[in-house]
């Protein structure tokens, strides 16, 4: 295996509050290979967006290390960070909301090139045209203002801006959550095409689990600041091993009335990140919890198949073994 493009080593992001430290990200280790899409899921407050902001250094992590291509960038100053920024870009839920509304789409896309002193005004105009073409917007979009665009078109502008510097990693934070269903698939397919054509890697953060299966090579599941499971996408869907992943999966509404479930699904709520349970953080909601789970936090253990799980009592590792166990019971 090649050296990873990005590596997080026990990354920590704590925020001081009056009620004590808010441990938004509490010791996460993972890696992303060049050209890979890593999906990250979890419910609100699990720390997935904080993790994204810490790893592209919008936050300065309070512990652990961020390595880009083997270089430790955890504590670099803004000026020392500049060459690395070019290699990591971010797409937001509504990219245009954060941008200057008085700039045309062309100016917005050219801005990163100007900041990095790349090209001449003429070559930048040519590059903007190419980028607009790549994201499926016509060249005439360059002279328009983003507020005149629909949500899907704005996300295309955000993507064009993010890939302008030819980054190796794009962090996508809920890029399709605000879009209409009929538009979501357009954007997901476009991101897949860009990855195929340019070999960039994504960290794709979403709460939409079923969409992740269509874009992620591997998926990590977060709960209260910890990574509880990480595995190749299909394995995680077909045979989740952490009880929390199993719970999340079973909660997804299935677009088929024949598969309707009428159980009460009383599975409790996520505890406050200011008051994290002892031991395994999920034990207060876990149907399989034992006294061990309350006392000791399980480490993330990764098997030879690349399937990692942090649980004292993980679920069977594949549907076939699950079937055997039912038969033996």
């Amino acid at each position: 295996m090649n050296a990873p493009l990005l590596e997080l080593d026990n990354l920590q992001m704590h925020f001081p509050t009056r009620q004590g430290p808010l441990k938004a990200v509490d010791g996460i280790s993972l890696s992303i290979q060049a050209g890979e899409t890593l999906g990250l899921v979890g419910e609100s407050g699990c720390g997935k967006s904080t993790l994204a902001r810490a790893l592209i250094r919008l936050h300065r992590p309070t512990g652990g290390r961020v390595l880009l291509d083997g270089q430790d960038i955890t504590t670099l100053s803004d000026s020392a960070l500049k060459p690395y920024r070019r290699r990591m870009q971010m797409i937001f839920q509504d990219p245009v909301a954060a941008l200057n509304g008085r700039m045309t789409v062309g100016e917005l896309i050219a801005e990163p090139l100007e900041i990095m002193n790349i090209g001449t005004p003429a070559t930048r105009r040519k590059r903007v045209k190419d980028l607009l073409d790549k994201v499926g917007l016509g060249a005439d979009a360059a002279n328009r203002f983003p507020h005149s665009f629909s949500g899907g078109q704005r996300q295309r502008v955000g993507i064009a801006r993010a890939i302008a510097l030819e980054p190796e990693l794009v962090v996508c934070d809920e890029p399709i959550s605000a879009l209409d269903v009929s538009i979501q698939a357009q954007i997901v397919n476009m991101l897949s095409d860009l990855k195929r054509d340019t070999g960039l890697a994504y960290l794709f953060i979403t709460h939409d689990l079923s969409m992740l299966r269509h874009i992620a090579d591997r998926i990590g599941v977060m709960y209260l600041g910890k990574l509880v499971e990480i595995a190749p996408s299909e394995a995680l869907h077909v045979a989740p091993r952490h009880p929390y992943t199993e719970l999340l999966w079973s909660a997804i509404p299935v677009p088929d009335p024949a598969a309707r479930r009428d159980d009460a699904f009383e599975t409790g709520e996520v505890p406050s990140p200011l008051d994290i349970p002892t031991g395994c953080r999920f034990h207060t909601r876990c149907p399989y919890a034992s006294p061990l789970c309350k006392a000791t936090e399980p480490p993330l253990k990764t098997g030879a198949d690349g399937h990692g799980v942090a649980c004292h009592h993980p679920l069977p590792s594949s549907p076939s073994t699950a079937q055997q166990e039912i038969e033996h019971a």
Partner: protein
Amino acid sequence: MTAPLLSLRDLRTEYRTDRGTVQAVRGVDLTLYRGEILGLVGESGSGKSVTCMSILKLLKRGGHITSGSADYDGTDLLRLSEGQLSRVRGDKIGVVFQDPMSALNPTMTVGRQVEEVLLQHRKISKKDARARAIELFKLVRIPSAETRIDNYPHEFSGGMRQRVMIAIALACDPDLLIADEPTTALDVTIQRQILALLKELRDRLGMAIILVTHDLGVIAETADRVMVLYGGQIMEEARVADLFEAPQHPYTRGLLAAIPDPRQSGGALTPVPGSPPDMRNPPSGCPFAPRCPKAMAICLTPPDLYGAGDALHLRPAQRTRCWLADPAVPAELMEAT
């Protein structure tokens, strides 16, 4: 067949804005029976929320109902005065919104807010109102109801706040609950809890529910019947099982192809090309025609809703607003554009 609880006829609602008039709802008919869960599904701007908010005239600034009637149990709600309507809201019809935090009063305990609704609509003592509030909190499964009732909204999680909203909506035993994207702001595990709760409450209390959502998965899990809206009109209506098994309208088919099924492995999705119409200037014919893979010359003329149930109404109609569903269209008009 019993009389419907609610009949909307030819509802038209528009919004006057600085940048023109938005034709949000353009002639919606809706029939709702007691005890049924009717799903209204559509994308942003389809008119699904405006349709159900028009029923109680809960429109944002600039909103006007320009025509139609809403016969509720023998009364046309659209002809009522504001004073008469305020007696219907919260009494005969309860409402749950997407964001409970903005619907609740942050400076008042949640118990007081339930009691206020009861005191406004019922001749009831303060003591009985409090007892009823605790009973309602238990009904919507808020743990430790007796103590939680004295908390303020910010002391609840998003899911628990939505349960408080449902308790308030149910305070006066309404026959109809309007739930406008009630789970959109919630996490997926909490969403399933709330949907299960709504179904359970319908079964126990027998009220009808209009469930507005953009999520076809939520419809499949929860609704009995569904109406698909696009461009301010009903594109298709059917029993839920029929809609998913045999969608008739090209828009419904496109939507179903564009969403991932969590039970199936990945691969490319099939998006619906193009963007939704600008409702300040909607297309003259079928609103979906500019994006429709089957668009024909005749689609520039507005189609009607075609199709019917059986004569005894044992099976409600599956109806489709599409020229392809009209048996009377002459063949020469059915040419692709």
